[in-house]
């Protein structure tokens, strides 16, 4: 964390990490506060980055089938990494283990490194020189690959990549990823229309637009 540079105290930095536990939101909040932004505007930006966790939660609640009483406790761990690991598991048992192990490990490591970073540990030096910034996307790619079994999943992934990258230069941080989520309903809509055409035996009027988008 670069919270120290943003003028946060040690206690504030650690509280942020422990309570928010969504990396992107934390960085966004610290960055906005450091730039002298209004605290509530800064919080709103950070909140927006966290909204995608709701979509993970929808799927995770199906996969994990958690008892109601456990959900408020599991919620703090609903993040990109736990979702990616849990979704890649073949059984409910494995999904629950994957979610718990990933959540616990990351929660401990993330907060420990936040503490060390806030204490001024600069000894690690430039992690980018070691290529460690490529580890994140490689982990996501490895977890995502087995999910891309059928055409619709591949189409969703491809469209999401286009939306996520294409909108990145023009929309505020966090919004392009949310916009990329639209790939899912768009792909389902196109698939639905195509199946409708097969049943009707002939292409409907205007269906060429849909095919255009899928290409």
């Amino acid at each position: 964390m670069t919270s120290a540079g943003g003028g946060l105290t040690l206690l504030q930095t650690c509280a942020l990490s422990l309570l928010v536990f969504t990396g992107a939101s934390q960085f966004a909040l610290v960055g906005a506060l450091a730039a002298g932004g209004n605290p509530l505007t800064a919080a709103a930006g950070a909140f927006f980055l966290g909204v995608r966790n709701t979509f993970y939660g929808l799927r995770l609640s199906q996969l994990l089938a958690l008892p109601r009483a456990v959900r408020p406790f599991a919620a703090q761990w609903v993040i990109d990494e736990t979702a990616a690991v849990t979704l890649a598991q073949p059984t409910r048992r494995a999904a629950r283990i994957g979610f718990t192990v990933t959540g616990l490990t990351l929660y401990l490591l993330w907060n420990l490194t936040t503490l060390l970073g806030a204490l001024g540990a600069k000894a690690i030096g430039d992690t980018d020189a070691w290529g460690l910034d490529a580890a994140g996307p490689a982990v996501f790619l490895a977890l995502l690959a087995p999910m891309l079994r059928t055409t619709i999943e591949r189409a969703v992934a491809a469209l999401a990549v286009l939306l996520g990258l294409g909108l990145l230069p023009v929309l505020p941080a966090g919004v392009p990823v949310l916009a990329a989520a639209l790939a899912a309903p768009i792909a389902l809509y196109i698939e639905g229309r195509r199946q409708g055409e097969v049943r009707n035996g002939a292409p409907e009027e205007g269906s060429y637009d849909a095919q255009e988008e899928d290409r």
Partner: protein
Amino acid sequence: MTVWIAIAATALGCYVVKLAGLLVPAGALERPLVRRLAALLPVALLAALTAQQTFADGHALVLDARAAGLVAAAVALVLRAPFLLVVAAAVLVTAGVRAIGG
């Protein structure tokens, strides 16, 4: 004090959105279309995140050593390499390209 307000507001907001997804009643997710949508949404989000972590530098799109690393990871995946090897390939190739000056 304002910093604490910002931290509290962010913590509360981020927790609520995390919990919201988990609290949607199972019945609401029973319709096949909703089920499929819930299954496809994380695929879209993770694919977009992977691409952004590879090609984004702030608001700019860049092609740098990370892209070479991700290609190495993809090759390792196609070759059915174990998970750690896939990540190691990405890290090593990225570091290698940077060392050469990419």
